[in-house]
């Protein structure tokens, strides 16, 4: 019984202090777990020091906690070793890191596949790389249900595809990507596979080795940790072959006025003082997540998602974006975006807010996807482990009210 939504909710300071709040915007940012916040405070008040620089006890304690955070992240992803974990400022930074560092090893004419379903953070960096160095950028299309349409995958890849960089789960439709098919196709032409896991991580630990991918990116603030920190996981061999991205303290072997040499990964990719307390807070969140019963949580998230989808289906004219059923989490994560004719998402969200419902309306940083689905903006409810039936009921009631009030 320790994992009921109410019990979980009580562990989130903001939600515990605001019992009236129906927070349904976890896809934008998840609330922070008590343990993560406590870890930040405890680090700052008992062992704050720079890492990889000092030899005094405070600095050693900070080093140790920071390296243990790397191990937590490695366990959360089932990475081969902690040395494959690069701490970054967030998923966007992780993705840009790969676009620059791996990107600098590509030649004009090499191809990178993204998808139409990408968040701008996994789309724009590749457009910028294309403009910098003449790679070909080909977007995998989506079907009417928002899932990646992989029927012409090998054709899209051609024989110079070097990387497939796709989202694991859409932040608009919740659609899960068929990673296995992509990995199999990529392996045939020797392309690497990067997964943008930003939306996946709040729904449970991941297994990068089982997925057999090469890079994985995510943000701490989307999995109950602090903001300002994220992770790039890369296979040891892949990281070892990449030049650094940012230059600065901590990433060098030696600097002379003429030239510099680089440290080994992961330090090579962590220029400057990293987000130390934030990485330690993130580790606390991940450690906590690893204690949970994810089968039970997924079942609950799935049931709430289904409850919401069914409730929405009763609203005349409403269009649900993405897969029409959760199919026991196989088809979609509990991220539910919809469009109601003649009602603008901003106006809907405004009326919902007056009823303590926190939802986001807009293009959700996924303009190519919305364009492909024939929408400009939509309203999104995203469900996390602390949500319960009351949140869904309040949302459905709130939408009724919005329709009356805005008519």
């Amino acid at each position, binding site marked *: 019984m320790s994992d009921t939504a109410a019990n979980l909710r009580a562990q989130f300071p903001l939600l515990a202090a605001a019992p009236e709040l129906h927070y349904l915007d976890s896809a934008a940012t998840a609330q922070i777990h008590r343990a993560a916040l406590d870890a930040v405070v405890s680090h700052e008040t008992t062992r704050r020091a720079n890492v990889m620089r000092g030899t005094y006890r405070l600095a050693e304690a900070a080093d140790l906690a920071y390296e243990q955070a790397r191990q937590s992240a490695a366990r959360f992803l089932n990475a081969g070793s902690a040395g494959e974990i690069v701490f970054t400022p967030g998923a966007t930074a992780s993705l840009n890191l790969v676009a620059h560092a791996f990107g600098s090893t590509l030649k004009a004419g090499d191809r990178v596949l993204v998808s139409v379903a990408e968040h701008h953070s996994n789309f*724009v960096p590749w*457009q*910028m790389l294309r*403009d910098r160095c003449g790679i070909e950028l080909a977007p995998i299309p989506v079907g009417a249900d928002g899932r990646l349409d992989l029927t012409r995958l090998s054709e899209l890849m051609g024989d110079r595809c070097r990387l497939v960089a796709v989202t694991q789960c859409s932040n608009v439709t919740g659609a899960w990507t068929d990673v296995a098919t992509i990995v199999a196709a990529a392996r045939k032409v020797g392309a690497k596979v990067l997964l943008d896991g930003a939306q996946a991580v709040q729904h449970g630990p991941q297994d990068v080795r089982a997925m057999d991918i090469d890079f994985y990116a995510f943000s701490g603030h989307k999995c109950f940790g602090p903001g300002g920190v994220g992770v790039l996981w890369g296979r040891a061999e892949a990281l070892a072959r990449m030049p650094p991205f940012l230059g600065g303290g901590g990433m060098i072997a030696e600097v002379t006025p003429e030239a510099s040499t680089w440290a080994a990964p992961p330090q090579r990719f962590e220029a400057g003082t990293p987000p130390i307390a934030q990485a330690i807070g993130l580790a606390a969140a991940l450690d906590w997540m690893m204690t949970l019963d994810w089968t039970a949580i997924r079942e609950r998230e799935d049931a709430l998602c289904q409850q919401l989808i069914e409730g929405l289906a009763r609203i005349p004219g409403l269009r649900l974006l993405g897969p029409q059923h959760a199919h026991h989490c196989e088809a979609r994560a509990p991220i539910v975006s919809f469009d109601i004719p003649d009602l*603008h*998402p*901003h*106006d809907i969200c*405004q*009326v919902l807010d*007056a009823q303590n419902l926190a939802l986001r*309306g*807009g*293009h959700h940083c996924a*303009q190519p996807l*919305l364009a492909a689905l024939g929408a*400009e*903006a939509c309203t999104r409810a995203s469900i996390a482990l602390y949500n319960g039936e009351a949140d869904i009921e309040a949302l459905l009631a709130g939408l009724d*009210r919005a329709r*009356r*009030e*805005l008519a």
Partner: protein
Amino acid sequence: MNSGDSLYQDAIKQFAQAAHGHGTLENATGEAKLNNPLCGDRVRMQVALDAGRIAAIAHETKGCLLCRAAASLLGARAAGMDSAAVEAVSDELDAMLKGAAPAPAAWPELAMFVPARAHASRHRCVLLPFRALIDALKAASPEVRRDAPRGAGDTANTTG
């Protein structure tokens, strides 16, 4: 359904519904398109100038009620104004939304946006048509260069 402090006063809904000035001009002398990068809302504003004053105005607006109401209000009221007058009203509206001033005396209808004061994230929805009109007026009088970078996020400065 409208409580007194609700954002969605009848006035706003009526202006949005009426969509004054909706459409395009054949003889436009200036045009601007602006979008709200948060939601993809768009305003395309066209003007025909006569001796520096707005002789005709038309817009195509894809947006929320606030944005559509503001565009419709401009469609109904902007004819006859020059650039300076439009900028003055826009500044007064901005000040009103920030809570620093009452509704502009010359445009009492703008009071319908007073309840938006409490919602800073919506101010740009109201202001977008005004900014588009200012840009359209600049485009119509090309000798007036636009040098200062504009408020965050409303303009596209570089093409990727």
